[in-house]
């Protein structure tokens, strides 16, 4: 899976918007949306929210966790603990990116939030690399990592698997008697 696909999945997350148009319920395969009343918050998937936002048809209400205080708390927690802390949204990175890129004007303290999310991301990915490193160096057979988000798994999956494959190959080459194939 590449990041674009993960982002695609993230776009199914619901977010509140305040439309500035009026529309009855719309019936989609994924479920009914609306009705849209001007000025009244309504929950829609992110993809629709962004679409409407780009057409200036709505204001996006940032999700509850997209708040400097809460993110700061998470960042501190993340830095303090060795394990991964639970994240308020399984798509926090994607949502933050999408919403901040497209509707930064509707999000108070957008820049701070961007920094905070990036900090959290960096911390977590660093942890992930660290654990992968120790996993390999200690030659463990299995490891358990909780509270990882899809995007995080994706960043490391291909690299980790490939490198493990190569290591396996290298190791098996080292062993005598197995090298006759080459």
């Amino acid at each position, binding site marked *: 899976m590449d990041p674009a696909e993960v982002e695609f999945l993230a776009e199914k997350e619901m977010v509140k918007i*305040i439309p*500035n148009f*009026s529309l009855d319920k719309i019936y989609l395969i994924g479920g009914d949306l609306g009705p849209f009343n*001007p*000025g*009244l918050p309504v929950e829609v998937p992110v993809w629709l929210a962004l679409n409407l936002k780009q057409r200036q*048809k709505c*204001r996006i*209400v940032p999700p509850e966790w997209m708040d400097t205080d809460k993110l700061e708390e998470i960042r501190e927690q993340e830095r303090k603990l060795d394990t991964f802390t639970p994240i308020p949204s399984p798509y926090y990175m994607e949502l933050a990116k999408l919403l901040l890129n497209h509707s930064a004007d509707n999000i*108070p303290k957008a820049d701070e939030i961007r920094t905070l999310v990036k900090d959290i991301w960096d911390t977590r990915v660093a942890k992930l690399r660290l654990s992968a490193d120790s996993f390999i160096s200690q030659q463990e057979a299995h490891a358990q990592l909780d509270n990882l988000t899809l995007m995080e798994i994706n960043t490391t999956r291909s690299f980790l698997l490939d490198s493990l494959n190569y290591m396996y190959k290298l190791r098996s080459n080292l062993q005598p008697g197995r090298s006759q194939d080459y």
Partner: protein
Amino acid sequence: MPCERKPMRYGHSEGHTDVCFDDKGKCIVTCGSDGDVRIWESLDDDDPKSINVGEKVYSVALKNGKLVTAVSNNTVQIHTFPEGDPDGILTRFTTNANHVTFNSSGSRVAAGSSDFIVKIVEVVDSSQQKTLRGHDAPVLSVALDTSDEFLASSSCDGSVTVWSIESQTQVAQWKILQKSSDVSNAKSLCRLAWQPHSGKLLAVPVDLTVQLYDRNTWTHVSTLCDDLITQVVNVVVWSPCGKFLAAGTVGGNLLIWDVEAKLCIERQKHEKGFTVCGMAWHPSGGRIAYTDTEGCLGLLEGVSSSSPPSSSTVQSTKATAAKEKNDYDDLFDEDDDRMLDEGMSDSRSPVKKPIMEEDDDDDDLMPATGKPRNRGSFLDDDDNSQDPGSVKLDGVPEEDGSSAILPAVGPAVSRPVYEGPMPTQPQRAFQAGSTPVHLMHRFMVWNSVGIVRGYNDDQDNAIDVEFHDTAIHHAMHLTNTLGHTMADLSQEAVLLACEGTDELASKIQCLHFSCWDTHKDWIVDLPKGEDVCALCLGQGWAAVATSALMVRLFSIGGVQKEIFSLPGAVVCMAGHGEQLLIMYHRGTGFDGDQALGVQLLQLGSKRRQVIHGEPLPLSRKSYLAWMGFTAEGTPCCIDSEGVVRMLNRTVGNTWTPVCNTRDSCKSKSDHYWVVGVHENPQQLRCIPCKGSRFPPTLPRPAVAVLPFNLPYCQTTTEKGQMEEQYWRSMLFHNHYSFLSSSGYEIDSEGQSQAEKEQQELLMKMFALSCKLEREFRCVELAEMMTHSVVTLAIRYASRSRLFKDKEMDVIKQGMGRFRTLSAEERLNWTERAKGDSDPKKRKREDEGQAIMERSKQKQMNQNENEADSAINGKFDGRVKIPGWSAGGAAGTPSTAPSSSVMESWREERTRSLEDNEMSLPSIAAAYTTILRGLGEDPQRQGLLKTPWRAATAMQFFTKGYQEKIIELCLCVTVSREVRVNPFKVSGAGKPSSSSAGQPRTTSVLDSMTMSSRKPTPLGGTSKQGKAPVLKPLAPKPKSKTQATLLQMSASKGNSKKLVDSQTEAEKVKAAPAATPPASVENIENRKPKTGFQLWLEDNRKSILADNPDFEEMDVIKQGMGRFRTLSAEERLNWTERAKGDSDPKKRKREDEGQVNDQMESDEGSAKKKKPLDTSAKLSAFAFNKE
């Protein structure tokens, strides 16, 4: 301690603060390092008026409506008070001034600055300045003596200097302070104070003491100190009488000395021990306000009354008396700005203070009950020992917490005081959905159309108009040159208005953006002296209420229309469509209540007043917070207690509480600020406000939706919930009838949905009552239902009864048992009987039904006992009917709908079917005549069946004349099936009818007979020789239900059984032959056509032989006559023949009926096992049938 320390409250941001009272002592004025001056109505004032005067304020002084502040931009500024408008700069220094003070008359201001200079400036003419130079360090504090002769100043150079103002020279100097380099390093602020009135003494805080110097000799007179003081004294202030001196220390101690006695009479500690940096004594002397370096404001209450009796009894009572007077002044001082406004909090109302306990935000009931109780006990205890004066005293001064002392201290002092209910200050006019006018950034209106924001700060005085729906109009930005304070917004226009000033008249400006010409706005000036108080927009009109108690109507284009007077000052107005809602002061409210009146006017074509100034119900001690219309046009109002009330047009324009927003609030200081009410869907749109009554403009508040909740009893129970839901649904769908009556198009789908919802709820309640065996309640509920649902209810009731009381279906006990049942149960049984297919019993059932009808009628008369006896009587009479007591009245319950009920009432009350059938030919003949008269040939192929059809239709149309509502109620099932349009050609019947042209005169009767599952064999009788077109019945609800509820396989699996049951049915059919003629007639009723037609076919020839010249109609007439002369036996034979004639197709249908029967009974047994308690499920099933 008699002196009460009130809890501190947050006033300014952290840093140096100062405090003073205004001249009358009505407001506390504070300043802080946040650059704001705040004017507090009281300590509990939730919304102090804020005036921004600069970046930082060091000192504040207030006298004669002039607010003087020392600001960080090195100036001393004047602002008007209480408006807060800048009134110029008094003087400038090279650095900031540290302390400003007025002289006693308020004509001069002295200021001491960090640039070592003290200046004295005339307030009226700031060019007249006197500069005092001589200090070698920043000046800490200045004080002007009462005679304007001397000025005392303290400085960081450690000296306290007295200057002669006139000569600008030093008179005396004491090096008594600690030296420091700057104000920030100084240990003490060293605020000096001259004794008021005499001005004899100058108080100087020196280290841990306060030293007093004599004005004449400039010698040290005395030192005031106390053990409690552990840190440096910061501030000293004299009481207005000059007898007491209060001091605040760095350590947070507050002390009051009696100067003459050098006695410390009061010791208080700051609740957190912060440094006291500002103190002010209330002009009446009763309280001291103080501020600390953390920006908090505190208050000491009841200060002087606590002084020792020897020196201060007179003083204290005088002080309280003065204060008392003051409060009453407040009360009636309408010109003052302290009218109630939108942001008013409960505790700010000056009226409440005398009436309620200090913690009045807590429990409104407390003071009401507490006060009489106190007085009562007082009278009981001291009835004889106390003179009336002291009794009166008791009720009076509750406001300063000294009531407990006063009677004891001075029983001799008696004052005439009114102690009845206190008038409430009338609330000020406001615009619904606006935030207080004095805010710099405020919402001028927020409604369902959009938002109008007003900005009034240093850079900008502007108005922003934003629409929720950008399709209406794009956002607008206007410069607010006229200073508009009121606004309303509709789909067509923005209406703005400002109050008049001395020079300019009050103006109304309308931006009519939907206007199609180029002039999109208009402005109207009101007559001089008349101010706009409230305004609103409707559809095509605008209304403005003015201070002249007048309402002016304008067209949206600016044409002046009607004007009329209001009986009182307007509070708020709202418009919707053609409706105008006005709330005004109907009179004076008492004890915190407002007395508001409502007028609802219908403008437009049919002008009338709908509500004629009736009182508006509000919660106790509350005021109107919002009013307007729902999106659907129902008036709605919300009071400050958060109760939402909606006009109930069906109950004579009463107001029904539909929601309490305070129930949804998490904390006591949270509120919901309502922006709109919608009835469909039921939404209360509002903005949650944490810790305030209204939201700030930034960050942009988000709208939340609250559900409505009628305050019904026991809403925790299922019954209560459903009742609440039902009545809420009723109330919230009233607007349909209103809208349709006023000519609007309504969403009929929504309406029918609403009705369905209501009926569903009724059904659920019915089911619940059934479960609880509350039969009377069941009947009450049934009375609220519509006809169709009543039948469902009856069916449900019968079924549930059946399953529940299984033993009851053993009707071996027979009549005796039956007689003891309640009417409802009998109804149930009879209804069950209705479903019974056994023809043998039908007759009896019919009778039972007839009885039932009567009983039901009686029940409707609300006279149950009487009815019961009457019914019993009837039953007794009926029991004698042969065969009745043999009664398998309820054998196997089969619920296929039958027409038994119908027949019975027809037989008794209306034109009988036989009559119908008999008269049919003659009517048809008449139609033939008419056709012939019109020049048509009745024998023409296309017209052959027309007379019959028309005749049937005529009978159908007129058949209701004899019917009664009650009967209809009982017979809805039947009549529903019967009342099919006779002209309607059903799908199945179409081909044959069109090809053959068989007279379809029988459709009504067909459906009747069909419903009893006796197919009518018409075939072969008529000339066309084709099978008659039988109208396939509307799907039988009951059988359908069975199919859904029960295993469908039952019918399939039982296909073999069918044969048996069919033969059984045959037998059953044969049975009536043996019954007396009456029952034969009955059967004939059901299938009269067949017998007669068969007979007619056979006998046509003979009739024609007798009368060769007879036309078809005549033949029939003749035949009818002859048929009547036949004996019952013969007729029966014909009927039987007709029956035997039925074609296989119909037979099949009969079989199906039989299957239904089978399933029915199967279901019966299946049902028995099923638990019945899920009422919701059952009612759902009931509705599935629909």
